[in-house]
């Protein structure tokens, strides 16, 4: 299967007042056609930065190296015009904060139509008709009336549906959902996840799902990439990962809870003692070694690489036995 999105050796460094800050280090992953890849990790692990760098949305203080290919087209280093023609059309985003991600002074209809008019060149009337269809697609009732509403007139869940409608307006190849349900109530989360699942089934959109919510992962994802301190430490099929986590960090995230893989309930990552390190440069060592209960001498002297195969792990002393059920 040829991947729709292929990220290879992606590294991101920020220039800050206190010197350079390494946020993402040689991250690689692929997303197949219609596949849902979940990128999981604690906040500050670089998952959002990875997502932003795909379509060049990072601020100017960021330096991005490596390669991001979308259907064979290289996006890293592409000129601004090319990136603009891809954003919203081929790669679309949904953000965490539905409350602030919509512009308060324009109607939702206007904000959806804007994408259609920019990328497909629809006229005002056609864009409006299509916007109503899209609102219906994401499950907003009486869309004809809602289209004239301003964001502040809608609830958080409704706004997130509008964000999704806007994102899928041009039928993008890849949808990047950055914590799409984190800011919402549990009951509303389920509805949003239903919409995303429906889109994948009906439109065949590939989804990169950035989250720290294992319930969401279990509910929606086909494959999972676990990130820690800017690196991918483990990647596997979702069932394989839940049943057979190999990286000590992943087992820490999952805890001893065997139910995590089966329940669709919202389940937060388990607390692991210590903090994600802030790195000015990537050391030649395992960045998790300080917090790792299974650390061996090699961990602090040499950086582990991902093993080949369908279930890949970057660890000198991985967990081999399946988790007790």
């Amino acid at each position: 299967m040829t991947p729709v999105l292929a990220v290879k050796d992606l590294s991101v460094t920020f220039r800050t007042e206190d010197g350079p800050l390494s946020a993402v280090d040689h991250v690689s992953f692929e997303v197949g056609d219609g596949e849902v890849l979940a990128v999981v990790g604690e906040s500050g692990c670089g998952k959002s930065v990875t997502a932003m760098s795909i379509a060049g949305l990072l601020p100017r203080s960021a330096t991005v190296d490596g390669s991001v290919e979308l259907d064979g087209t290289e996006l890293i280093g592409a000129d601004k015009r090319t990136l603009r023609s891809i954003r919203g059309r081929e790669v679309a985003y949904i953000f965490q904060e539905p409350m602030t991600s919509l512009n308060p002074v324009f109607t939702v209809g206007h904000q959806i139509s804007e994408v259609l008019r920019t990328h497909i060149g629809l006229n005002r009337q056609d864009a409006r008709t299509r916007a109503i269809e899209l609102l219906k697609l994401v499950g907003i009732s009486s869309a004809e009336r809602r289209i004239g509403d301003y964001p502040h007139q809608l609830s958080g869940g409704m706004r997130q549906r509008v964000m999704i409608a806007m994102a899928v307006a041009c039928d993008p190849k890849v949808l990047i959902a950055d914590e799409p349900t984190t800011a919402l109530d549990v009951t509303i989360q389920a509805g949003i996840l239903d919409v995303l699942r429906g889109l994948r089934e009906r439109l065949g959109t590939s989804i990169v799902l950035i989250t720290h919510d294992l319930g969401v992962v279990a509910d929606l994802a086909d494959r999972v990439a676990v990130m820690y301190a800017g690196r991918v430490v483990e990647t596997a099929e979702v069932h394989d990962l839940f049943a057979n986590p190999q990286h000590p960090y992943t087992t820490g995230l999952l805890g001893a809870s065997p139910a995590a893989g089966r329940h669709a309930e919202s389940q937060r990552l388990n607390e692991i003692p210590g903090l994600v390190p802030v790195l000015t440069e990537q050391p030649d060592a395992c960045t998790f070694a300080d917090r790792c209960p299974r650390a061996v001498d090699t961990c602090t002297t040499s950086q582990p690489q991902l093993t080949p195969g369908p279930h890949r792990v970057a660890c000198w002393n991985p967990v081999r036995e399946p988790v007790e059920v």
Partner: protein
Amino acid sequence: MRRYLLNRLWQSLVTLVLATIVVFVGVRALPGDPALALAGEERDPESLRAIRQQYGLDQSWLVQFWKFVSHAARGDLGESIRTGTPVRSMILSALPVTIELSVLAIVIASVIGVGAGVLAAVRRGGPAEWAANGLALLGLSVPHFWLGLMAILYLSVALGLFPASGFVPFFTNPVANLHHLILPAVILGTGLAAVIMRQTRSSMLDALSADYIRTAEAKGLPPKAVIGKHALRNSLIVVVTIVGLQLGALISGAVVTERIFALPGFGKLTVDAVFQRDYPVIQAVVLVTATAYIVINLLVDLLYSVIDPRIRVRGEA
């Protein structure tokens, strides 16, 4: 929306009533017996009594206040002590000059201020921002009546680019009218332009870092739409309020500017009235200014609610 409107209207009305009381009391606090001032040369007790009766000065303050208010409401502002001309007609002939000058100044200041503010925010850290910030600081610090003097001295007198003083009504000759007003309007607008620029810059910087701008960029919109539409529209809401708040400064500025450029406007009327101790004119001028300020601020607030849908339409959430 309707409740907001009614509330706002009510507040304005209260302020207006209070302002009227202040003017009334202020005039009574003027030094000297107004009857003496009105009598002029004939100061015998008989004519003084006649004058008191004629102007109702022998009645209670309450009655006098009611007469003052009811006359003012009918547009009867009394007569000038000096010339005997109805104050109403003096004001009506002076007001258009001041209004035209102020509107021109606001337009010029808004164009320059918003333009420079957007530029400074978008070109952050570059020479454009430095230049815009520096000019704004200068605009805030320079005494604009002095700037007017300098403009007359060097642009009008030395170079002959503009007429140094005088006024031509718009309907007599629009081109000459603008030629006479453009320099005073620019001078009057400098301070306002500086304030608008600083406000635009900071609210544009706020807007540009907002989540909805990231959304607009993620949608693949061109920079023209991201900055000129999504960010600017939100920033302008704040800028409109600032223009409203600066109105008092603008009115004060207009008085001085008219004085320097010898424009026959409201400002000249005011200053002349003070020096001639023409109390009915002073009283009318103060009342009209306060009323104008309150009404215009009400209009600015309404405009504000038109621009900002969060005020115009109430949310369900």
